């Protein structure tokens, strides 16, 4: 390994100047330097979306958003944790949508902001998973729910896109709504249904 993973890197995290080996993530660097860190930590493998951080790199004014468990430290980095993601403000129940014909109307009732999207791409540029969030909102607004939902397969619900949106749209919840209605109304696998029918009629008991 030409790049020694143990080489010490200096950076600032939540206002504290620390140094840690270069092979460490932001969270591990804090622990390494002896600082406690509990809030904003989760799966530590980039799928729970808890460890959102704001990052400014040396020599740059640009602030980016990333996941602290995935982000390797760099010399001169300035990092801030964003804890407590906001819970969704809209509320809906799938059972209240009586048929798939009504999904679009319901969508605009639940997410009235969605059609006000300014196409500012704020959401897309903040997404640590590289999802085309803006496009997802647009597709959902047009009623193309299954297509919209497809874009969000890797969404970890970190809520950063929601924080970034000037129109108070919650793009990740728009996306999840799109995915959920697709399953709720359109996934009807015949192999599963046959099995359920057979079992309902009392077939296929288990003998212990």
């Amino acid at each position, binding site marked *: 390994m030409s790049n020694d993973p143990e080489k010490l890197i200096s950076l600032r995290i939540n206002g504290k100047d620390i140094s840690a080996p270069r092979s460490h993530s932001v969270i591990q660097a804090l622990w390494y330097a002896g600082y406690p860190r509990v809030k904003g930590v989760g*799966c530590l*493998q980039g799928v729970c979306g808890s460890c959102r951080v704001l990052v400014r790199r040396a020599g740059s004014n640009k602030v980016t958003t990333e996941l602290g468990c995935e982000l390797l430290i760099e010399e001169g980095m300035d990092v801030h944790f964003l804890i407590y993601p906001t819970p969704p403000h809209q509320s809906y129940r799938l059972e209240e949508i009586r048929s798939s014909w009504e999904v679009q109307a319901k969508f605009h009732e639940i997410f009235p902001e969605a059609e006000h999207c300014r196409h500012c791409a704020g959401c897309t540029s903040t997404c640590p998973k590289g999802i085309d969030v803006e496009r997802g909102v647009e597709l959902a607004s047009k009623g193309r729910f299954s297509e919209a939902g497809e874009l969000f397969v890797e969404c970890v619900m970190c809520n950063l896109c929601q924080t970034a949106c000037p129109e108070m749209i919650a793009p990740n919840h728009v996306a999840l709504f799109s995915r959920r209605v697709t399953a709720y109304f359109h*996934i009807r696998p015949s192999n599963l249904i046959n099995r359920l029918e057979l*079992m309902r009629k009392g077939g296929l008991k288990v003998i*212990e």
Partner: protein
Amino acid sequence: MAKGIPYNIALKHYRAQAERPMPQTDFGEELLRQYHPDYLRERCVDLTVGPNAGDPCHRQLAEVLQGDARIDEADLAGSPEVETDVLVIGGGGAGCAAALEASLAGAKVILATKLRLGDSNTVMAEGGIQASVEKDDTPQQHYEDTVKGAHGELDRSLAAQMVMDAPEVIRWLIQQGMQFELDQYGDLMTRRAGGTSAPRVLYFRDYTGLEMMRVLREAVFNSNIEVWDYSPAVELLSDESGHCAGAVVSSLKDYKYILVKARSVIIATGGIGRMHLNDFPTSNHFGATGDGLVLAYRAGARLRDLDIFQYHPSGLAYPPHLAGTLITEGVRSAGAYLLNAAGERFIDELKPRDYVAAAIIRECAEGRGVYAGDGQGRPSVAGGRTPGATDGKCGVWLDTPSIELRQPGIIEKRFPKLLHLGTKCGIDPRKQPPLIYPTLHYQNGGAIIDREAASTVPGLFCAGEVCGGVHGRNRLMGNSLLDIIVFGRRAGQAAAKRAHGFGRGPKKITIEHLRNFRRELMLANMPLARKSPLLFPAYAKFDVDSDYDGLRKTAAAGFIND
């Protein structure tokens, strides 16, 4: 321990090659006895106090089960009280399923979880969930596979309940809005896993758990369930007859305790990976510290199988900051070889997990592994490793380029998460093999429950990985995601039913059981120094963080006296 061949040298010698011969050696049981961590000498002790006194238990787990409570009466005195029908502790798959069912049954539900709702092992699951839906498969076959996987030492009635509920659970998940991989006709796709006699694993890419968790979390947020995040439970409450009557919940937001009086309590706190048993790295999430086991045990619940854990063969060994990260078994199922530093296969890669893990440990212990250490012996604070861990710096190749050679494009199509992981490690797994070493993955044992998920303490239900018996001494891949929804739902329904039948509100609540337990510890001459539940792994330094002084009576009291 022999060090092995340095990473750079081994990598230089590595050549991608589609086929390599299967090794002829078969070590059988001897391999497990010599190298599997469950067989390490001095690993186990007999429990001295509590409902399982006399039973074998992993040494580190015994320390927390027989630890002293974090709180006593003084903490309860000034704390606010809240009442509810059902209190669910833990916001992973089992907890959310339980809360949703209890709420649907009309109960008032509070769900308290340690960190953010959905920070869990559930969100990380990749491979899939078992349910017999194919024509050439039956619940009976599913049952028999489960029994066989468990080496017969399981609670048969729980396994039977699980396989019979499986198809309905999949329907329920779809109705919550969860997607599955479908074929061109819209049927559920199925695949095999180690130990299944028919294709039975349903999945969504290699993101099955992520898809499940975000859907269940959204369903919970869009319900009447009251969610308390950043609220780890530290103890249960009991009533005068010793029944469970609620819990003491701490808040990481305002650093206070709250007493939740509940007619039924459901523990769904998941596993123990972050206890780093035997100094192993882990695939588990940050909050998997075995708290539920401690809470239940002190309240008098019986546990089982506390001496066996699942070590998944393919945890990432390098780079250090990702040590322990899981690479799904699907990669080996797809035909990826395991190679030592000399580029030789050393075990049938599709043997049960315990054999494969033991074989990897043997290669490393005997110096045939690849060594990726820093050469300075500096303890690492990697998320997946305790400082001073024995290894994790040594590993073997998971020969992903071989499957890509045989089936070009397979990695991108079937294992997007692996590609993403490769990017984080700075390698392309289609060309360069990742270095792996076994990782602490799953708690096989846990709280004893019945078909309604009731523990041996009235009023206390348990669901999910915190329970034992469903998988006996070894779990099949895909059976855990199933188990957590089956028994999560059952726990929710049974807890709501009990709450309805309660008549007047909860009775007088106490922590009498803590006092009794402490007395037992003292009589047995056990040290009272160790506080439990752990709540967080030691390297997060929760217990020295001055932010949390409000949750430490002694520290707070000292402050006032100053």
